[in-house]
């Protein structure tokens, strides 16, 4: 799959934003006044910034508001609806906390729950795709949720929780890669089933339907990044969890340590998310004989 920067930014940043909102809604940390304002500002900048980034890849962004209509069937629509609900409810909670110094625990909890549901919807957009076997696994929503909780805990200064979550996340990320590596073969689609000609023998593409590229090849047959996949996996594994966990365990807690850990985590997050797209193979590639192995 083509790793569009807008989608990588969107899923990464909004995941972090909603992760921070989740903890703020549960009063972790218990902030008020200007500190609360700063925390909520960062959370909203990430969540809203991410959502805005997601509109950059639309062909007709001016009609984006129509995407709230089909929540009964579409995960993308549900994501939009829950994101707006989460941001509204948390907005109410934040306003009461910052301007009236009033804690509304129930509102906070509802906002936290809505943030979780939003991230589940984001993950399900990918996990529902039977055409992309690497994504179509139960670990996909688990992974997105762990990124949300671990990143959120790190930003919300929940150091002990963040350490544990980052460690679990690292394991989950490796599992997602390992399961994903076998997913295409397990799904069973081959050039033989795609053309129906497998019953007659070994099939190969003799002539492409078009001499230059097209939308399908640009969108679904991304191959450049696979060359460096292993290196990027090592970088992602180190940065997402291992190095931040070591830092948090071995150095005295402080803003600077947390900040460096967060920067490292984000580098890992972006490389892992880039790989999530770049390594994902769509079955349509079979019609172009692009699948190897």
């Amino acid at each position, binding site marked *: *799959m083509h790793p569009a920067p807008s989608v990588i930014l969107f899923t990464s940043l909004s995941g972090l934003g909603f992760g921070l909102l989740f903890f703020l809604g549960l009063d972790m940390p218990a902030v008020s006044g200007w500190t609360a304002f700063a925390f909520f500002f960062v959370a909203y900048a990430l969540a809203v910034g991410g959502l805005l980034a997601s509109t950059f890849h639309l*062909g007709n962004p001016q*009609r984006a508001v129509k*995407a709230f209509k089909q929540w009964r069937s579409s995960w993308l629509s549900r994501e939009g609806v829950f994101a707006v609900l989460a941001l509204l409810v948390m907005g109410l909670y934040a306003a009461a906390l910052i301007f009236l110094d009033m804690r509304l625990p129930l509102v906070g909890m509802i906002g936290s729950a809505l943030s979780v549901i939003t991230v589940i919807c984001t993950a399900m957009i990918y996990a*529902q*795709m039977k055409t992309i076997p690497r994504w179509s696994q139960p670990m996909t929503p688990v992974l997105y949720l762990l990124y949300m909780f671990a990143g959120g805990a790190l930003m919300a200064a929940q150091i002990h929780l963040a350490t544990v979550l980052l460690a679990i996340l690292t394991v989950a990320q490796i599992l997602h890669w390992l399961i994903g590596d076998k997913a295409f073969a397990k799904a069973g689609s081959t050039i033989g089933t795609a053309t*129906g000609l497998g019953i007659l023998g070994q099939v190969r593409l003799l002539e492409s339907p078009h001499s230059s590229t097209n939308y399908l090849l640009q*969108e679904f047959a991304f191959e450049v990044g696979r060359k460096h996949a292993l290196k990027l996996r090592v970088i992602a594994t180190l940065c997402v969890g291992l190095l931040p966990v070591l830092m948090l365990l071995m150095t005295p807690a402080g803003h600077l340590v947390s900040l460096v850990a967060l920067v490292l985590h984000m580098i890992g997050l972006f490389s892992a998310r880039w790989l999530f797209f770049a390594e994902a193979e769509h079955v*349509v590639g079979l019609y172009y004989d692009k699948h190897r192995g």
Partner: protein
Amino acid sequence: MTTLPASTDKKLGLVIDLDICVGCHACVISCKEWNTSNYGAPLSDMDAYGENPVGTFLNRVHTFEVKSAGCNAQTVHFPKSCLHCEDAPCVTVCPTGASYKRSEDGIVLVNESDCIGCGLCAWACPYGAREMDAAEGVMKKCTLCVDRIYNENIPEIDREPSCVRTCPAKARHFGDFADPDSNVSVMTRERGGMELMPELMTKPVNRYLPPRPKADISGEIDILAPLLTPVPENKGGFMGWLDKALEAI
């Protein structure tokens, strides 16, 4: 429009005969010609006369080679367009309801004025039947020439999809799969019409007729064939001398 209709009155679709298709791409061109000037936004081309032309097409012809042990390799031309699936995954992922499947005839269409161009339907389609138009930013797909098949302003003989109408080999057939006695249902039954990627459970309506087994011609080499064997280079004798002599002139 949110979800797929439980059932459709008709199941309009195509039968493509892989035994007959000669790979001339006439269906590709006639499809583009009809659909760029009728239903919805035109099918744009980028850099059409430059070094790297890219364009939107609703129908494309791949060419495959099939080999099995002990048999001659077989060339199969393979036209591919929307299969108008009964469980079309492209419809349910659409956040705006722009993608829908008609309950009256099962045709899968895009209402372009609602399409935001997110591309999710193309992700959900296993067959590459949908292409985003680079100029309009909306998703384009085969309409089964919905603006021809019911069109009373054109002669009756033309009221079938453009690709079917134009196919010089008659490799493409249009009809109603819900009717067990229709041309397409009979052909599918008699020739073992195949579903593409049945493992993905999309229940495609369009069917592909497999190529018929080829006759074994390995024992029937023409008696003149040995005379056509190329003359090897560096041949001795008279031919060798002649070759050298002619070369030297």
